[in-house]
């Protein structure tokens, strides 16, 4: 935890001093001690307020980047995956395309997911060996994504906790190296939601500057500690905070997934046609501006 805090603190300062004007504004506020509600975790905010601030965190409508997964298993084995990801959130619906570029055995495999605001969610998979784009059953948020320790919900929710999914409560703020963090706790609202999410509860340490959960501890549906997500790198990309380096450790399986995002770009006019089932069959898309 100490390492995490130290890293984050220095990284945040670096980010704030080198990125967009809004970041500099926040930095100035932090230094002059103006203490707006968002700056210090000891400011009185209810759990619901913190959760709302997390949900309302600025997001890029269109985002493209490279994803690198390193999977560590309990015997020391390491597997790696690289992919181009395309993320589009528009009018409440989220579309995510993931196009694998490595290892060779997975090259040109494409996965497309629609998280529709109305109607059922949809998934498609393109496997080059079959020459065909195949419609898949909608994934439960609790299903694990392509052998990683991330669930589909982890990927889609982008470090946010849906307000309808959890009963929130506030723990005691945690001070680490002179900086305090909100301790937000959540319990799944009912048994169905627990099964859907794959989690019964969580405890998150939330950075009061960014409203980004820097560490999340999840318990499984039986209430047994399941996994820890530790954010080790944040970047401000077009006014939205993006976790560009994080680790997910499954304590039950002694398995760990390290995720690094690189060359992340905000593309405001990302054409929606890129994220269609037909396009998946053409392989890794060529995106203007990259």
């Amino acid at each position, binding site marked *: 935890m100490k390492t995490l805090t130290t890293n984050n603190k220095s990284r945040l300062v670096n980010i704030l001093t080198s990125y967009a004007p809004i970041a500099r504004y926040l930095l100035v506020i932090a230094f002059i001690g103006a203490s707006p509600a968002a700056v210090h975790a000891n400011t009185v905010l209810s759990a619901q307020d913190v959760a709302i601030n997390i949900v309302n965190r600025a997001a890029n409508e269109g985002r493209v980047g490279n994803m690198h997964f390193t*999977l560590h*298993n309990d015997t020391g*084995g390491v*597997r*790696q995956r690289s992919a181009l990801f395309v993320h589009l959130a528009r009018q409440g619906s989220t579309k995510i395309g993931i196009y694998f*570029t490595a*290892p*060779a*055995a997975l*090259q*040109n495999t494409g996965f497309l997911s629609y998280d529709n605001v109305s*109607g*059922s*969610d*949809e*998934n498609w998979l393109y496997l*080059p*060996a*079959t*020459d*065909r784009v*195949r*419609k*898949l*059953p*909608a*994934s*439960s948020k609790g*299903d*694990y994504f*392509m*052998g*990683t*320790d991330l669930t589909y919900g982890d990927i889609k929710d982008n470090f946010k906790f849906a307000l309808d999914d959890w009963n929130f409560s506030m723990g005691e703020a945690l001070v680490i190296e002179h900086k305090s963090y909100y301790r937000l706790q959540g319990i799944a609202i009912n048994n169905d939601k627990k099964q859907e999410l794959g989690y019964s509860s969580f405890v998150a340490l939330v950075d009061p500057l960014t409203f980004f959960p820097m560490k999340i501890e999840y318990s499984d549906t039986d209430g047994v500690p399941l996994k820890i997500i530790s954010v080790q790198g944040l970047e401000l990309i077009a006014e939205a905070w993006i976790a560009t380096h994080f680790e997910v450790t499954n304590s039950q*399986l002694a*398995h760990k997934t390290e995720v690094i995002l690189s060359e992340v770009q905000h593309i405001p006019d990302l054409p929606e*046609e890129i994220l269609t*089932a*037909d396009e998946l069959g*053409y*392989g*890794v898309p*060529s995106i*203007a501006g990259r």
Partner: protein
Amino acid sequence: MRNMLFTYQWACYCLRAVSLVSLFLSWGILPVNAEVKLQSGRLSLEYRSGVNLQNGDLDLSRVTLSSAHKFRFSSQWSGQIDTLSQLASDNTGLGRVDNFASLNRPIFDNNKARVELARASVMWRKRGTSVVIGKQVTPWGVLDGIQVTDRFDPVRRRDFVLTDMRPERIARWGVRWRTKVDGWHIDTSLALDGSTSQQARMGDAFFLTSTRFTAGLTLDDVNVSNQAGEQVIKNNFEIVTPERSHALAHSTAGLKVAHSLGDGDVSLMVFRGPDADPVLGLHSMLKVNQPIRVSFDYLRRTVFGATYDVTQGATVWRLELAYIPDQPLNILASVPLAQARGQRILTGVGMDWRAPNDWFINTQLVVDYIEKDNLSLVRPQTDTLLTLRAQRSFYNARLVFKSELLASVNQGDGAIRPAFAFDWSDRIKLQSGIDWLFGDPNGQFGQFKDASRWWASFTYTF
């Protein structure tokens, strides 16, 4: 007419030449500032062996080197070259290629080794429109490995249906054009290549002997035993395949339109071309002490098809319907190996279910009906095929266990295929399984009950 065909064939030769030259030299004909970039490249080396469960013989021993490379020439131009090289020293063999069009034949071929150009194409693409020229496939249909409307491409059946991916498509030379107009997806394809589905060679483990595939001809008719060697069969039975060429008469042309419908997607298609499976005919008069000479004829037919697939939460439903008004058939008549045409209707329904505890279930049911009028068919008038697959992964998807049932419900025969795949590392994959076939020795699965096998494979991909 002869001159027209000659000219047409030369046009096809030119098409192939243009595809290959374009692929290798695209930077010459594409925009001046085009930069050739290797978009992806993969080499895969696999050794697969199989031991016969009945007699312990090594029935399958095959080394396969496959490559797949994609190139990007510019934002609108790209290309693909895939190759398939195989060495085999077993009873399964590499399959017949005498029914491949001349330009689709392997680059190198003998009894034990074969090198094929699996794909070779260039693609131009802008917004929703694409044109692909070269050796390619046209994978239509939504069901998995069971062919209702998915009949445009010929497929490999040298291993019967006991392959990892089903169907294994055979690419053909042609042109494919796809576009989108007001939510409609239009897909047209023209294969100027008369290649048809690949079967096992005579004497190989999966050489078809069921009378439904031999036009009613039994092994007794050709005076050989069930386990006769290749030479014995050849002495008594000779297959003559008329040359498959790039003539218009051997081409396949089709159109598919698709649109969303409710929460799902619907498509309608029509295509006309040679049936990928042959009807048999007597090539010459029967003579005493002479082998029976049988011709494999690939007659043209028209396929009308419709598909629909829809996601409903943890389930995906797939529906297919095909109508073939002029299906070539073999019938039993006063003369041997008689041919006729009839109406054929195929309906299929499939379901994917993401079941609890990480299980994935896929099941499909297909009814294949032939309107026989007064014809005496060599196969049942109605065939009912069932597939059922259950699959689960373990250890962060490193280990996958799957089990599959393929069955002919009406004939009571089928295959059961439990298998596992283990990703030892990003490059090494180990697989093993059993292909156990059962049923009547004259059934479409039961004919191979003596070829039931345990198999294992090692794959290195880089």
